[in-house]
């Protein structure tokens, strides 16, 4: 059979192919030739054939039938064969093939070969693709070579050892004695690889780390020599001697200095020296500076050094090369938690990066900007961020919007500013706002009582022009439903009130309902809003009735159900309609944890469907409250409706924590409200920062008798000018001997700031009999209601 074509011929031929099909044909023909040649066990040309096979493998064609041939090449005595054989092994074989274990013996022999280049080949292959079995078998050989006097082999053995340790960490101990003199090397190659080996050992094992800490002074000395020594053409890169070695030493120093004061102190000088003396005109210098900054940040360096590091990063941000800016932003993101003030100084540069053309840089600048927002700079930052929201790519808009909401919530200087910001976000990026933002916004708006008129007016104007952005339309419909009467009556303090008639309002809501752009959820919001307006508006009730009955036969099941229920409301339960569709009360504040997490909502603030539910359930406890009224006999005391126990007891605890999160824990003295027959009830007070007329009282009931009290129920009533809300108690059993307490939270809304008075009724079972008691609490401290 004719001699197989040379590699170059093959490459040339394949390159002349003009189509994929032609190329495939050529390759298949050649593969067939190669396969028959392999079958014939042709030793002379095996090397050439495998080389051709490797080329075809690189192009993406299957070449697994060549694996065994590679092994035969490795076993051959010719250097050329071995070279190609090992290359083929590295390219075609990996741990998953069973064949690779057959190599072990070959490699073992070659590791002891008389020619260093063959030994080098073997070490290289082992270091690149050795599996853990192979490493275990051959680790001894590698260790021997680590101690040889040949520096060419020593450096390869060191890196091979690194690979062995990565695969089989238990063998690390074996290499320990060989590392004793590693750092005394003069040869940069060996020095470099030794540092890599030490780094790997220290990263893997804390014992090794402690053991090698004593090398810090030596490393510092080496680094110093590198910087100070003169020009050495061999290792020089753009005027800096051996940057690769410098960077590696800095990295090892970083690992050794972490959490260790002494080492860190030894390094301070050299780090400062490197930071100030390195040339920054080329990338090389910047690479070294970058590594230095990372090291300074990670070890326990003194604050002057840290400021220096952050300033270097700030300089990086002004660099023209976008790689360097990217790297700077990433590092600043890591350090902003710990060195917040220093990073603040570079805020303006970071904000400028928002306008960069590169997408990765913009993203990092955005994240960093959010991390830097605080109470002082929130107005300016928000302006920049809103502008960014306008102009950025769609994939950012969702994250940016969530970030803006979070930041606004935390640092809003005034309610009006907060609402304005939210409006701006809704109008510019409305369709990208996350779904969970809508209930949050609604709750926020409800809580800013004085801004209702302003808010509803602005929202109305916003959707008048364009109602395609779903979240905006949802929030707007909800608000119009709640506060439509304010809109129509034209009372707005913050802005020029606009003249709107009831019909116009209904027009816009109806168009939302009809429009094809509205999602099903949005339509639900709109329908409920229209329904609520039936109690707020006076002249258009018939129109509303008509609209609602149309949707009684809607295809959308959700809408149909709502419409039918509302219809029923008009027909059979008209007397209940005003009570059911009353204004929503001030909602509890629910803290959001972050854009990615699901927001816990109070049972009352969930989707609009549930809006009609709580009032009906409130009707049953009304009977209980009536009993209370009878018992108390007072006529100026309104009954309180405890929230339906549908809110799970688990969330009561969570809400408590949320409440405590934003409450003002100034020292309002707590009082003992009741103390009789071994039952003691203490009141502790907190005032809310965001709503000064809300007082939160936490009651703690404890039992000093020898028997526990079960089925404990606490009820309270307040004068008419107050509103009371009672949350679920932590349990209904008070253990004896003061060993535990029941806690329950009461929220009192006191808009007129009158003196707080309360009547309480307690019922419980004790010593087998039912007990009950009434008491009046008058000793509230003035700070709790003023």
């Amino acid at each position: 059979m004719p001699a197989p074509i040379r590699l170059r011929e093959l490459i040339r031929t394949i390159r002349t192919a003009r189509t994929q099909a032609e190329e495939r044909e050529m390759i298949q023909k050649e593969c067939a030739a190669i396969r028959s040649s392999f079958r014939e066990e042709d030793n002379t040309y095996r090397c050439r054939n495998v080389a051709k096979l490797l080329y075809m493998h690189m192009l993406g064609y299957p070449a697994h039938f060549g694996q065994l041939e590679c092994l035969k090449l490795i076993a051959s005595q010719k250097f050329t064969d071995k070279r190609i054989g090992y290359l083929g092994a590295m390219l075609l074989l990996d741990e998953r093939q069973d064949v690779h274990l057959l190599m072990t013996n070959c490699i073992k022999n070659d590791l002891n070969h008389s020619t260093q280049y063959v030994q080098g080949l073997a070490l290289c292959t082992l270091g690149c693709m050795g599996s853990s079995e192979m490493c275990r078998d051959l680790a001894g050989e590698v260790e021997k070579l680590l101690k040889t006097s040949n520096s060419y082999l020593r450096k390869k053995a060191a890196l091979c050892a690194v690979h062995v340790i990565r695969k089989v960490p238990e063998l690390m101990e074996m290499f320990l004695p060989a590392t004793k003199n590693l750092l005394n090397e003069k040869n940069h190659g060996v020095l470099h690889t030794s540092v890599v080996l030490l780094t790997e050992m220290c990263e893997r094992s804390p014992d090794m780390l402690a053991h090698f800490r004593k090398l810090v002074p030596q490393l510092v000395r080496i680094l110093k020599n590198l910087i100070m020594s003169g020009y050495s053409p061999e290792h020089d890169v753009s005027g800096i001697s051996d940057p690769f070695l410098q960077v590696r030493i800095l990295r090892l120093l970083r690992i050794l200095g972490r959490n260790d004061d002494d080492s860190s102190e030894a390094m301070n000088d050299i780090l400062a020296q490197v930071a100030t003396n390195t040339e920054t005109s080329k990338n090389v210098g910047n690479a070294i500076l970058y590594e230095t900054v990372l090291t300074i940040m990670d070890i326990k360096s003194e604050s002057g050094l840290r400021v220096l590091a952050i300033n270097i990063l700030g300089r990086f941000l002004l660099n023209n090369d976008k790689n360097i800016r990217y790297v700077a932003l990433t590092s600043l993101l890591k350090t902003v938690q710990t060195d917040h003030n220093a990073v603040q100084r570079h805020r303006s540069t970071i904000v400028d990066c928002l306008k960069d053309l590169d997408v990765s840089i913009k993203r990092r600048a955005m994240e960093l900007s959010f991390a830097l927002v605080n109470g002082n700079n929130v107005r300016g930052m928000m302006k920049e961020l809103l502008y960014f929201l306008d102009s950025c790519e769609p994939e950012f808009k969702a994250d940016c919007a969530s970030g803006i909401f979070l930041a606004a919530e935390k640092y809003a200087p005034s309610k009006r500013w907060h609402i304005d910001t939210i409006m701006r976000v809704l109008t510019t990026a409305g369709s990208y706002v996350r779904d969970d933002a809508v209930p949050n916004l609604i709750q926020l708006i409800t809580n800013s009582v004085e801004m209702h008129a302003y808010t509803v007016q602005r929202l109305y104007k916003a959707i008048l022009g364009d109602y395609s952005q779903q979240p905006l339309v949802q929030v707007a419909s909800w608000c119009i439903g709640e506060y439509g009467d304010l809109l129509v009556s034209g009372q707005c303090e913050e802005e020029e009130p606009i003249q709107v008639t009831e019909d116009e309002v209904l027009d816009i809501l109806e168009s939302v309902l009809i429009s094809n752009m509205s999602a099903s959820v949005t339509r639900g919001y709109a329908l409920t809003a229209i329904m609520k307006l039936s109690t707020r508006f006076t002249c258009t009730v018939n129109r509303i009735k008509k609209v609602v009955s149309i949707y009684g036969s809607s295809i959308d099941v959700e809408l149909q159900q709502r419409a039918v229920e509302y219809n029923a409301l008009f027909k059979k339960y008209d007397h209940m309609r005003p009570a059911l569709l009353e204004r929503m009360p001030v909602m509890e504040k629910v803290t959001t944890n972050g854009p990615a997490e699901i927001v816990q909502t109070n049972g009352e603030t969930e989707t609009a469907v549930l809006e009609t539910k709580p009032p009906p359930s409130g009707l049953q406890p009304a009977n209980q409250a009536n009993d209370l009224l009878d018992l108390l006999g007072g006529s100026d005391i309104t009954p309180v409706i405890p929230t339906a126990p549908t809110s799970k007891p688990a969330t009561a605890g969570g809400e408590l924590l949320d409440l405590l999160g934003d409450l003002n824990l100034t020292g309002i003295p707590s009082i003992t409200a009741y103390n009789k027959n071994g039952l003691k009830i203490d009141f502790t007070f907190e005032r809310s920062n965001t709503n000064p007329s809300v007082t939160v009282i936490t009651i703690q009931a404890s039992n000093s008798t020898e028997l526990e009290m079960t089925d404990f129920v606490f009820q309270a009533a307040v004068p008419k000018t107050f509103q009371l809300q009672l949350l679920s108690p932590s349990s209904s059993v008070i253990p004896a001997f003061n060993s535990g307490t029941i806690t329950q939270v009461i929220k009192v809304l006191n808009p007129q700031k009158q003196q707080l008075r309360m009547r309480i009724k307690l019922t419980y079972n004790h010593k087998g009999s039912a007990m009950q008691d009434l008491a009046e609490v008058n000793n509230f401290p003035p700070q709790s209601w003023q």
Partner: protein
Amino acid sequence: YYRYASLYFCCAIEDQDNELITLEIIHRYVELLDKYFGSVCELDIIFNFEKAYFILDEFLLGGEVQETSKKNVLKAIEQADLLQEVSTSNFSGLSVSMV
């Protein structure tokens, strides 16, 4: 990655590696190729891909730089090439030891 005329040299690194020094490594490798082939171009690499691999194996091992001196890397490659020529011309087992 680094772009040299029509060629892109890409390198994948872990997240704790220094990105900027990696760029230097790429640049150093290209310099080595340049020195070896004498003003390297795309065709050189295509037709001599196995040599490109050999140079890479002398410069990096297991993902780390093993020799920081350009001179030493090129010397090692030269010696190995010589060995290859000797062995092919002799067409017999090799026992020449060149340290």
